């Protein structure tokens, strides 16, 4: 079931005009921001399908950048997000793609600064609900309905065991887990859905293990 709670249907409270193109876009932006962990210096967003055709009318650009500034869907600063980003010296660029994607409301967000870069692909599936389907080239298959731990780490022995041990110590049960890498010894991604909510303390413990690049929690 893609929609699990009644508040996916009656909600979110949001700034108009579109739940998929404004609220959903803000949530994709905010999720990317959470994974990146800080305000980026450069933002490049590629829009596909209906996003590409109607983003100006729906304020999709405004909402994506608002989300990247960490605004929630109902933040009244939303309409000023592009101006605020410019004032903060953030370089923002939008690209309209003609490429056909599986979902009509798709955005590819590329974030970077002197410390690193991140690429996230999000889809807005309706009513403000979103899914993250790709992270740094790794395909994600998340339900979006459970607390989700995303761990970008160095591809080396013991990484999975380190994370699993910490989860076990905190009595957290894993409902779904996916581990992927692009090339041996380089970057790898663990995506883990859990049955229980996770604490900040637990995330810190994971971050302190060797070879952990970024540890992010979604849907907690």
């Amino acid at each position, binding site marked *: 079931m893609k929609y699990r709670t009644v508040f996916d249907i009656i909600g979110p*409270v949001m700034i108009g005009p579109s739940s998929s*193109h404004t609220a959903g876009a803000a949530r994709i932006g905010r999720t990317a921001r959470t994974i990146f962990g800080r305000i980026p210096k450069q933002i490049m967003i590629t829009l596909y399908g209906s996003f590409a055709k109607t983003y100006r*009318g729906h304020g999709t650009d405004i909402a994506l950048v608002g989300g990247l500034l960490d605004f929630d869907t109902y933040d009244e600063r939303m309409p000023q997000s592009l101006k605020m980003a410019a004032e903060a010296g953030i370089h923002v660029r939008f690209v309209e793609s003609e490429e056909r994607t599986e979902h009509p409301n798709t955005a590819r967000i590329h974030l970077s600064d002197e410390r690193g870069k991140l690429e996230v692909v999000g889809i807005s599936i309706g*009513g403000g609900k979103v899914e993250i389907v790709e992270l740094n080239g790794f395909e994600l298959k998340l339900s979006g309905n459970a607390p989700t731990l995303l761990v970008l780490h160095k591809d080396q022995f013991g990484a999975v065991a380190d994370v699993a041990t910490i989860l076990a110590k905190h009595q957290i049960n894993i409902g779904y887990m996916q581990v992927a890498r692009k090339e041996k010894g380089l970057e790898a991604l663990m995506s883990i859905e859990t049955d229980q909510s996770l604490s900040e303390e637990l995330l810190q413990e994971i971050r302190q293990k060797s070879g952990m690049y970024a540890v992010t929690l979604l849907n907690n």
Partner: protein
Amino acid sequence: MNFRSVAELVEIAEMEGLKISEVMVRQEMEVMNRSREEIWQEMGRNLDVMGQAIEKGLSQEERSSSGLSGGDAKRIQKYKETAPILLSGETVLEAVASATAVSEVNAAMGIIVATPTAGACGILPGTIHTTAKKFQLDRDAMIAGLFVSGAIGYCIANNACISGATGGCQAEVGSATAMAAAAVVEMAGGTPSQAAEAVAIALKNMLGLVCDPIAGLVEAPCVKRNAMGAAIAMVAADLALAGVKSIIPTDEVISAMYKIGQEMPVSLRETALGGLAATPTGRALERQIFHNTKES
């Protein structure tokens, strides 16, 4: 036991002698592991946002930045208060005026609740507030009405779709209209199966409705479709309360909506490439609105 379809929802309600709203509340408590008070309060806050949006849209003249929408809610309200004879009736027109008000606030980038989407955000506030007023029901009855509509929306969203880009306007305004019809039936004292009939009757009258927003803005024809969605919801509820039954079962109407959406060309699914958006006037308005920003 959790429900996955409208038939299962009605079965649980009737077997256990519960209202649809109560089945939804119990499922939410179980699935999300939250208390009744917490859930009720959150829905209450949503109701408050809806009430504020109605008030704002009816009292101030909400103009959108494009100039395509705004002012109609006040216009309808004034006509309703002064015309000697109302063709569709006071109750329907009140729902229509309130739905228009919320939809105009949305177009002006005001604060609303997506029900199930922002493009269809006027229909539930308009119908639920009007029904509560006519039946002199309290705040809790309106909150219960929102849970009924949530239960129906939950079935539609999980078995079909609720976004215009996926299924056209029938998936947005159509879903909201069906959700509102069910809510109003329960608020008026109807049974769970009458609420389900109202869903089928309302949704079948929205089948095939395309999403063709002028200039890609959630304004025209969206605001007027919210107005008419509210009217259809009220009439569909009356039909169901009168004992009219849908020939095709509710869940099959929902799956027909989904299939129609899949067969709809991309140009009619929120791309502003077809329908009203592609008319000479629609195109001219688009050029006028984006004249200064298109090349930026």
